[in-house]
């Protein structure tokens, strides 16, 4: 994975709570066997109805999505962050995320950051008023800043290191091979196998 340190660009507002992964990427697009190519299907049903906020000319090319609480709830489909990434987003800011979705974002190199509701509201109002507002998400400094605002965010320290280093977590776990082997030896004998 490529290291992720900083994202700068424009924001796009999605002022809705409980946006579920069925909306982010509807099920008919989960049948591909690749990890890429999902961008055109992002929010497919909502965009098909016309005038969807992400399709408005003023939000074209935005790299930071500002969203409502409990973003990404529902299914575990990693296709959701893949679609957001393929569409061009590099960071998502919301008051809260569903746990599996947030994990999936980190694995995809997508910065899923929580800020208090009032600060998310401020960003939402800023971009709604002026879509050209610039924002920088600085993962190293744990800050979201721009003209007239500077917010600090908390992020799981391990996830942060993984993102900053672009680390492959499989290699990291493989370093514990002897611990894993020792654990395997001590497992109770009655535990089932598929055989």
């Amino acid at each position: 994975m490529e290291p992720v340190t900083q994202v700068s660009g424009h924001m796009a507002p999605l002022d809705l709570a409980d946006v579920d992964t069925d909306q982010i990427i509807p099920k008919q697009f989960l049948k591909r066997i690749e990890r890429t190519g999902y961008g055109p299907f992002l929010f497919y049903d909502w965009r098909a109805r016309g005038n969807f906020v992400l399709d408005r000319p003023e939000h074209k090319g935005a790299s930071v999505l500002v969203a409502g609480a409990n973003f990404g709830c529902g299914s575990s489909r990693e296709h959701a962050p893949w679609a957001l990434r393929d569409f061009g987003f590099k960071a998502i800011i919301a008051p809260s995320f569903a746990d599996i979705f947030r994990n999936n974002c980190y694995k995809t190199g997508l910065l899923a950051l929580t800020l208090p509701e009032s600060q998310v509201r401020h960003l939402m109002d800023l971009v709604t008023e002026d879509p050209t507002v610039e924002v920088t998400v600085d993962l190293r400094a744990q800050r979201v800043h721009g003209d007239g605002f500077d917010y600090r965010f908390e992020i799981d320290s391990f996830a942060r290191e993984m993102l900053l280093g672009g680390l492959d977590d499989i290699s990291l776990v493989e370093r514990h091979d002897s611990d894993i082997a020792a654990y395997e030896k001590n497992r109770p004998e009655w535990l089932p196998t598929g055989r």
Partner: protein
Amino acid sequence: MAKTLAQKLWDAHVVHSAQGEPDLLFVDLHLVHEVTSPQAFEGLRLAGRKVRRPDLTIATMDHNVPTRGGVRAADELSRKQMEVLAENCRREGIPLHQIGSRRQGIVHVIGPELGLTQPGMLIVCGDSHTSTHGAFGALAFGIGTSEVELVLATQCLPQKRQGDIAVEVSGDLPLGVTAKDIVLGLIGKTGTSLGQGHLVEYRGSTIRGLSMEGRMTVCNMSIEWGAKAGMIAPDETTFNYLEGRPHAPRGAAWEAALDSWRSLTSDDDAPFDRVIPVDATKLEPHVTWGTTPAQVVPVTGRVPAPRSETDERALRYMDLRPGTALADIAIDRVFIGSCTNARLEDLRAAASVIHGRHVHPKVRAMVVPGSTSVKRAAEDEGLDAVFKAAGFEWRNAGCSMCLGMNPDILAPGERCASTSNRNFEGRQGSGGRTHLMSPPMAAAAAITGHLVDVRELM
């Protein structure tokens, strides 16, 4: 120090822990299906890695299998996903219960019925409803595709410690009220995200009184209020369910397992971050009116006035007006199925309402058993005949219209009484409208052609 059941399960699976790092946990059982695994196997192959424990990995086909006509009825992309899964399993030596085989079924139905799901285990699957397996006193949760790849490669998963919530359900369930109503009523109180970052233990006299099927229904929907996992301490009900199943321990191993399983309870003074009491005696059959499972009311109620923009959006999508009595809402379709409510007991409960009655002429109703073995057992006791005589379609096992990845979908604007777990916009088909409820409630709606209190038909 006194520990919760969840923390005991967690501690028993720690392979490695260090300050400032997530714990590295060992996975006892990794369930795999066709939709969230192809990219994981591809990743392994590209990196030249092999599956570390194919013997602890089990695959099935469920998400996009057609429920009639066999694999040939599948669209080209679905068929391709099934072929790719079969090829991946062949190459890596992973047991696969594929479409057409007698153990095929929804991943969260076959794990328990094969006896693969046992107390004390850590179980993961690339599916958010993996929490179902917690009903056996297991720690079970859903993961994404990258994590599927990590587990295939290492049989381990780094995880950050989670908090503890207890849901204390007490009292006898009134007639016509089911496990589904316990969890729908609960989510109506908690909202969609209270459980985030927590492992939930369901406990109390009502939970003790539930069958394993009912317990699975409750644990299944833990994710719908945001919880990482839901679980129930194992007891005699659990052991009776497991004994004699194909993968359950036998003889001396069974006795050793029982000894260990009996210790899987929360200590008396174990600390929970939050305790949520539920009075079961006050529960009624519940029905969702909106587009999240938290938008739910008793069937005797009315569509509520919107309290947020989310509510207004849901009312528009569902084409409902505040103040409408739920019983005045006509339906077009009925779906009895899904990992939440498609086990033998669920089909029996629905059939008992349907017996001797007929599906309303304007309604199209179907039953999709949770597994091939549930289907066979139901046929052995004549349930299929009850459903068919009433006008229900009797299908083969799969996820089917719970998420509409196969040909079983709602047409735009159609309204469905469904025993599944999610009423999100378009979940059962683009433009389709879903009302979640228990199997007896869905059966009653099929008969009357509108949402109805099943107690009126009892």
